[in-house]
C-alpha cells in the first residue's frame, strides 16, 4: 500500500496527553502475530472438518501409495525414485496438500466473500497492511493444518508402508524450512489470484484455472521427475514446483550441499518475486478503488 511507511509510524496522540509514556498496545509485528494466532485458533474450531479432512487425506494416501507401489514394482527406479522413496513421496505430498493449500483456499474463501458482500471496502478503512494481514492469517492457518493434516497422514503412512525417513536429523529442519517457503510461494500465487477480484469482482474463474495448473505443475498428481521431454525441463522452473516438488526432494534427501541451497534459494526467489508482484497489484487495486471508485 502506498502508505506503508505510515503503518509503522506511531499514531498521533489524540487522548490529550494522558497516554503519553504509557505502554502502547503493541508493535506492528505484534499485531500480525496476533492475527496469525487468531487464524490458528479459528481453524482449530472446525473440528469435524479437520477430522474428516485428515481421514480423507489418509485414505487417499493409502490408495495412491498402493498404486505407486505397483507401478514401481513394474518399473523400478522410475524418475530416479526407488520403491520406498516413491511411497514416501505420496505421504509427504499428502501432508503438504492442505498445509500448503495446493488446491487453493484458506484466505481466498474469506476474500472472495468480502468481494461479493462489499466488505472489502471496510478493510481499506483500517490502518493495517492488506497483504501482511492476509499473509498472517494464512501462516496461522498453515501452522494449524501442519499440526493435524500434516502429521497424521505421515504417521499412518510410516506405520502401514515401508517409507524412507531422512537419514540426517538436520534434514527435518531443512524440510520444515522448505515447507514454510512453500506456504509463502503458495500465498504469493493465491494472493495474485484473489486480488483480481478488484477488477473482476469474482475471482472464481481464475481460481478454477489455477487449481488445475497448480495440481499438475506442483507434482501433486505425478512427480515432476516423471514428466516427459520439454515439459520435464520446464516444470521444475515454474513457481508451482516450489509447492510440492522441492519440499519432497528435500525430505527424500535428493539434493545436498549446493543442490539443497539451490532448491531453497529457488523457493525463496519465487516467494520474493510473487510477494512483490502482489504488492504491486495491491497498489494498483487500491489506486483503482481510491481514484476511479472501483
Amino acid at each position: 500500500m502506498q502508505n506503508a511507511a505510515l503503518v509503522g509510524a506511531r499514531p498521533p496522540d489524540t487522548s490529550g496527553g494522558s497516554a503519553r509514556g504509557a505502554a502502547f498496545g503493541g508493535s506492528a509485528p505484534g499485531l500480525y502475530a496476533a492475527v496469525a494466532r487468531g487464524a490458528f485458533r479459528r481453524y482449530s474450531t472446525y473440528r469435524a472438518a479437520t477430522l474428516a479432512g485428515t481421514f480423507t487425506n489418509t485414505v487417499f494416501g493409502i490408495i495412491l501409495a498402493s498404486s505407486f507401489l505397483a507401478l514401481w514394482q513394474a518399473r523400478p527406479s522410475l524418475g530416479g525414485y526407488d520403491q520406498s522413496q516413491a511411497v514416501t513421496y505420496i505421504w509427504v505430498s499428502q501432508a503438504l496438500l492442505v498445509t500448503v493449500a495446493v488446491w487453493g483456499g484458506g484466505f481466498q474463501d474469506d476474500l472472495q466473500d468480502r468481494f461479493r458482500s462489499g466488505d472489502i471496502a471496510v478493510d481499506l478503512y483500517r490502518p493495517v497492511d492488506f497483504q501482511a494481514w492476509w499473509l498472517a492469517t494464512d501462516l496461522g492457518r498453515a501452522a494449524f493444518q501442519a499440526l493435524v493434516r500434516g502429521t497424521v497422514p505421515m504417521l499412518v503412512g510410516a506405520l502401514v508402508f515401508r517409507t524412507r525417513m531422512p537419514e540426517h536429523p538436520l534434514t527435518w529442519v531443512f524440510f520444515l524450512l522448505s515447507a514454510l517457503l512453500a506456504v509463502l510461494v503458495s500465498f504469493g500465487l493465491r494472493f495474485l489470484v484473489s486480488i483480481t477480484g478488484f477488477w473482476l469482482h469474482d475471482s472464481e474463474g481464475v481460481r478454477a484455472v489455477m487449481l488445475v495448473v497448480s495440481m499438475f505443475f506442483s507434482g501433486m498428481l505425478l512427480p515432476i521427475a516423471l514428466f516427459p521431454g520439454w515439459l520435464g525441463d520446464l516444470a521444475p522452473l515454474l513457481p508451482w514446483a516450489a509447492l510440492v516438488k522441492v519440499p519432497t526432494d528435500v525430505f527424500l534427501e535428493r539434493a545436498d550441499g549446493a543442490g539443497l541451497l539451490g532448491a531453497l534459494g529457488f523457493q525463496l526467489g519465487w516467494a520474493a518475486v510473487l510477494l512483490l508482484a502482489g504488492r504491486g497489484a495491491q497498489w494498483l487495486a487500491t489506486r483503482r478503488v481510491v481514484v476511479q471508485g472501483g
Partner: protein
Amino acid sequence: MALIELQDVHRTFTVRARTGRFSRVRREVRAVDGLSFTVEAGECVGYIGPNGAGKSTTIKMLTGILVPSSGRLRVAGVDPARERVALARRIGVVFGQRTTLWWDLPLRDSFELARRIYRIPDRRYRENLGRCVELLDLGGLLDTPVRQLSLGQRMRGDLAAALLHDPQVLYLDEPTIGLDVVSKGKVREFLREVNRDRGTTVLLTTHDLTDIEQLCGRVMVIDHGRVVHDGGLDGLHAAGRSERTLVVDLAEARPPIEVAGARVVKVEGPRQWLAFPARESAAPIVAEVAARYPLVDLSVREPAIEDVIARMYAEVSIG
C-alpha cells in the same frame, strides 16, 4: 476550526453502458455535485437522502478511500485520501450491514485485535472496554463467538470495536438497520452518551428518521449530490413546506366546508380534514370554523417527519 470541512466537492464516475453488441457509451455520473458543509467538533449530524443521493460517496471520501474529482476536503485538518492510514487511527466507522468482527472467534478476540490495530495504550483500552461493556451490556457476550450473536448483539459489538481507540469522528451508516425496538433503543442511548460525554463527533446516515429525531440536533438532507437542507429538524418543516392537519367533527355530514387559509383534503361523514401550512397558527382557522359551522370537536395533527422528507425528495426530483 471545523472538524469536517467540504468546499465545493465534486465526484463523477464514468459509467460505460452497452448500446449494442460491441458499442459502449461512456456516460458521466455526478454522484456528488458541488457539496459544501462544515461540521464542528462535538456535533451530532444526521446525513440523510434517498438511495443514490451521494451519501455513501461522501462517507467514502471522508474516510479517504475515494478521492474527490475536485474541491477541497479536510477531516481533522488532513486530506483524507492522502493520509488515509494515519486518519484511520482517528476515525471510527460502523456499517449496519457489514462487520469488522472476527466471525468464528469470541467477541473478546476482536476487541484485542482492535487494541493492536489502533495501538491503544493498555490503561485506555481497559477503561474504554469497561465503559463499552457496561453501556452496551456486552458483559455476558465477550466469550461468545461472533457467529452465534444476534444481529443486535453483533451491532453492539461492532460499535464497541469502533470506539475503543477514542476516535474523534464516528461515521455511522444505518446503525439500527434490522434491529428490534429494544436494540434500537440501546444503540441510540449509547450513541447519545458517546456524543455527549466523550465529545465524539457523529455523522449518522440512516433511513430511520427516529434515529435522527432522537440523536441529532442538526440534519443535512442531500439529493442528487447536493445539500438541499441543512439545519434543525424544525427547519425541515419549513423547508419541506409541510402542512399540519386540522380534524373537525361537525354536528352533521356536510359537503366540504370553506375556510380561508385551509383546504379540505378528506371528508368522512361529519368529520372533515383540513390542511394548512405548518408555519401558520391554527387559531384563526379554528375560530372561523367555530363561527360558521356547528363544531362539535377538533384536533390538530403535526406532520410526520417521514412525510416532510418524502415531500422534499419529491420536490427536488421534479425541480
